[in-house]
């Protein structure tokens, strides 16, 4: 071997020594994400609020002071604090707090279920379109464009209206609204990753498409798709409330925030505080989901 090789070996040795001196711990990717997330105060506050809400609605039967369906003709539209009703009573004399807690179950369910359904279906279709490209991409993306031609609220109302009122139809219509949006995000992210050198290099090492998708594509696209989906939860919640408000979602006497907003709107002049409460719940939940998904996005950005 030449003299050049010897000097290089010395340089290599020096590098090794330096490296050993500066040894540090190297946590995994998700540990890093959690650490960055825990430093983000705003996100942590929102996550705490969401967690509290979730606990309250899950344990609604324990926490609720009254039966949410127990009506009382003499206690209609009473202000907060009246006779043991912490948040007052609604237009049929039912306890507001209990109805908000039970209504939260349905609102959360209607907020999350369509997003999960469209995350699975839209995610798969979008990754397929992005990874395969060509005619498959053309077929999938042009089909989603058809859905994009209609405003999302109008589309959900139209589908719900055609299928008839009911929770399952509301979920179906909202899923159909979100699937194209998730497909588009998944396709964009996957197309970006597919053209990166590490995918080329995996292909050059002889890996099959399945292996490339599993090892190199999915771990890099699921994060952004998931973040986008979490931002849709608030939209879904508002849309579900809207459908219920129009009478296309849940039906009375079921408790649901959107429906409660609808039935209490006549009391907006007599008991404005009461009429606002379901809206405040929707607002709080959706803004918390939005801020949390923003926080998640920046926590997952490795380069920052």
């Amino acid at each position: 071997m030449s003299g050049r090789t010897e000097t290089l070996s010395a340089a290599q040795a020096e590098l090794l020594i330096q490296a050993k001196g500066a040894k540090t711990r190297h946590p995994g990717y998700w540990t890093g994400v959690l650490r960055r997330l825990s430093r983000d105060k705003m996100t942590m506050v929102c996550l705490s609020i969401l967690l509290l809400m979730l606990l309250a609605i899950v344990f609604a039967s324990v926490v609720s002071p009254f039966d949410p369906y127990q009506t009382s003709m003499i206690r209609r539209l009473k202000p907060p604090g009246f006779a043991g009703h912490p948040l007052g009573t609604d237009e049929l004399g039912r306890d507001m707090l209990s109805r908000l807690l039970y209504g939260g179950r349905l609102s959360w369910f209607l907020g999350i279920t369509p997003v999960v359904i469209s995350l699975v279906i839209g995610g798969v279709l979008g990754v397929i379109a992005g990874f395969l490209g060509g005619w498959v991409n053309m077929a999938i993306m042009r089909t989603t464009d058809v859905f994009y031609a209609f405003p999302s609220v109008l589309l959900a109302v139209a589908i719900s209206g055609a299928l008839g009122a009911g929770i399952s139809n509301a979920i179906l219509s909202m899923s159909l609204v979100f699937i194209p949006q998730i497909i588009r995000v998944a396709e964009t992210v996957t197309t970006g990753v597919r053209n990166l050198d590490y995918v080329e290099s995996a292909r050059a090492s002889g890996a099959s498409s399945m292996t490339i998708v599993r090892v190199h594509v999915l771990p890099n696209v699921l994060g952004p798709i998931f973040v986008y989906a979490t931002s849709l939860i608030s939209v879904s919640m508002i849309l579900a409330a809207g459908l219920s408000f129009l009478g296309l979602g849940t039906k009375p006497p079921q408790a649901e925030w959107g429906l409660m907003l609808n039935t209490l709107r006549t009391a907006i002049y007599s008991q404005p505080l009461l009429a606002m409460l379901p809206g405040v719940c929707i607002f709080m939940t959706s803004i918390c989901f939005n801020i949390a998904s923003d926080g998640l996005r920046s926590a997952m950005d490795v380069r920052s």
Partner: protein
Amino acid sequence: MIVLTQTTEILRQLPDVGGPAQPLLTIRGLTKHFPLRSGLLGRSTGVVQAVDDISFDVRKGETLGLVGESGCGKSTTSRLIMALLEPTSGEVIFDGQAVGYGGLTLKEYRRQVQMVFQDSYSSLNPRLTVRDSIAFAPGVHGVARRSAVTRADELLEAVGLDPAQFGPRYPHELSGGQRQRINIARALALQPRLLILDEPVSALDKSVEAQVLNLLLDLKDQFGLTYLFISHDLNVVQYVSDRVLVMYLGRVAEIGPVDTIYNGAAHPYTAALLDSRPSMDPDRRRLEPPLQGDPPNPVNPPSGCRFRTRCLHAEAVCADKAPPLAPAGPEHLAACLMVLPGSGHSQAPKLAA
């Protein structure tokens, strides 16, 4: 040679088939035309002649430098050789065996030819640790996980990085030079015989560039490699190469031993390229750039010689006749009518009667 434990039984460099005289890689008439499509139906409205009928050999154990301006087809050539792009026509012969069609299977071929990309960041999966990135390719070829990891650690050591410290790291925690070392280790993981280096040091600082170049030269001896070194940096090519191939607008302009070409280029394009290097000598400093303008559009290349639009010696005959590669000296070929005897160019050598 580096001693490889355990894995040597599973992944070792495949044996020499054709003997030392047989070129390791033979490229014959390789052509890639990208169709230009427009409109909804994708009507073809022309082609980009990215690589047009190029032929050359890469000899066993040599470093062939491939130089040319940006857009001249260097990267397309490397991707054609890696079989990442489907050629329009032409063939790739590896150690006497055609690739695909009854010769070497694509998977066998890819074990023997690996590539290091220019962008050290985008060529590493940000979600895999350094160790997993290197161990990925052996895993694809059926090496057990444990052996692949051992192998990755050996290779990290070979490129001068401590496996215990760098193995569990992620690409964004490393510097550009460290990442490029990892890319090199990753490319070596399959024990290839040919390494295509696509501008491996262009994105690095000058000081790091020298380290990586020396590492590459060192690894070449250790692992018994052959390099195809693609670069636009003429000094780097001169430093690492045994022979140089100059490309212009998708065609081979000149090919020959590095000293011959750097001391006396036969093709005016090569001469202009070499002149374009800044000189340290104030007496040799020039005010006029040796090459003016941009290369012509490869959708509509000039007729005849593609360099004639920028060539100082262009004559009418250059527009009619595409110059073939003609001998300009021992082992030295140039595609210029001034080299081809009896071509009709005023500076061409006379035909021996």
